[in-house]
């Protein structure tokens, strides 16, 4: 009985040690997931949020991206949009925020692949965006390329992934609600 108790105690201590190790020294995958979840939270805003808070959030958003960030949005049935640099992104986000009353963005699935040099990574994720007063969410698969700069994972490229591809397709001649 004493041996069993000691074994159980040893196993519990090992488990505690492993847990502490993962908390103190999280893996790059975990850090990236956390950062992307924060990004989704920063993009989201409630209908009753003040203008100053919106502006602050839009400016905070810039710190998630590298200076040479490129965003390439190409959704089926919509015109293609390309944004380059933090300034353009901040402007696009502010424009989007003024177009809709509220937005709740989530990344329910994030699949991270770290490059062998551990300095860059690609995250394939699903974006679920719920716009206030809209019944159906916008669902889109996206690919985020990240690079480690001064110890921080910054997004260098964002592009849409075509889950269902269509080769010969005429886009509608008005922009998506996400981009206006």
């Amino acid at each position, binding site marked *: 009985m004493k041996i069993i108790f000691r074994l159980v105690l040893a196993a519990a201590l090992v488990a505690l040690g492993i847990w502490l190790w993962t908390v103190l020294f999280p893996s790059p995958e975990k850090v990236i997931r956390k950062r992307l979840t924060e990004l989704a939270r920063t993009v989201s805003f409630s209908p009753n949020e003040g203008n100053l808070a919106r502006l602050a959030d839009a400016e905070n958003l810039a710190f998630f991206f590298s200076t040479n960030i490129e965003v390439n949005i190409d959704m089926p049935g919509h015109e293609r949009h390309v944004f380059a640099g933090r300034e353009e992104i901040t402007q696009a986000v502010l424009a989007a925020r003024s177009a809709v009353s509220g937005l709740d963005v989530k990344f329910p699935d994030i699949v991270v692949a770290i490059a062998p040099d551990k300095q860059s990574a690609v995250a394939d994720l699903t974006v679920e965006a719920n716009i206030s007063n809209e019944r159906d969410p916008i669902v889109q698969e996206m690919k985020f390329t990240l690079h480690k700069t001064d110890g921080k994972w910054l997004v260098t490229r964002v592009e849409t992934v075509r889950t*269902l591809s269509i080769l010969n397709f005429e886009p509608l001649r008005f922009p998506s609600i996400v981009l206006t």
Partner: protein
Amino acid sequence: MPAQNQPTQTAQTLRLPDWLRIVLIGRNPKVTLARIAVLIVSCFIIFKFILFAIRAEGISMLPTYQDGSIHLMSRVAYLWHEPQRGDVVSIRLAGAHMMYMKRIIGLPGETIAFANGQVLINGQTLDEPYIKFFCDWNLPPEKLGPDEYYVVGDNRTMPPQYHEHGIAKRDRIFGKLLL
């Protein structure tokens, strides 16, 4: 004396009637415990690796599947054979939390087109009894690759630009809808 009798009385009042004890924990508690363990492990294996409960959101599969309805999907349906035309499948995006629910209309190697709402497979009209609403789509032919399937919803009343459909790679097909 009353003070000495009290514990016995409390134990007697807390003791469950035999019939209720049998209903709640069975005749043999050890066997009941083993049954519960087997049930939990079975449920975990079934709902993690074999069946998947999903909730349909949106109108693209109307009238076959209603918005908000709950369904079961088999993850092992395509272990022994490839997806068939007419199967309703779930197409994964980045993961399994959000997926598209669509019907397979085109198989690998085929050429798919839409003419006045009719699906043409290699130039031949496809009979689709599940389509109940009017459709006037006209889309040019698409030749599918060796591991590509053409998927689309049953409700094609909206313009094709508003309806998520197109070519899905085989590895994106996550499972087949059972009910």
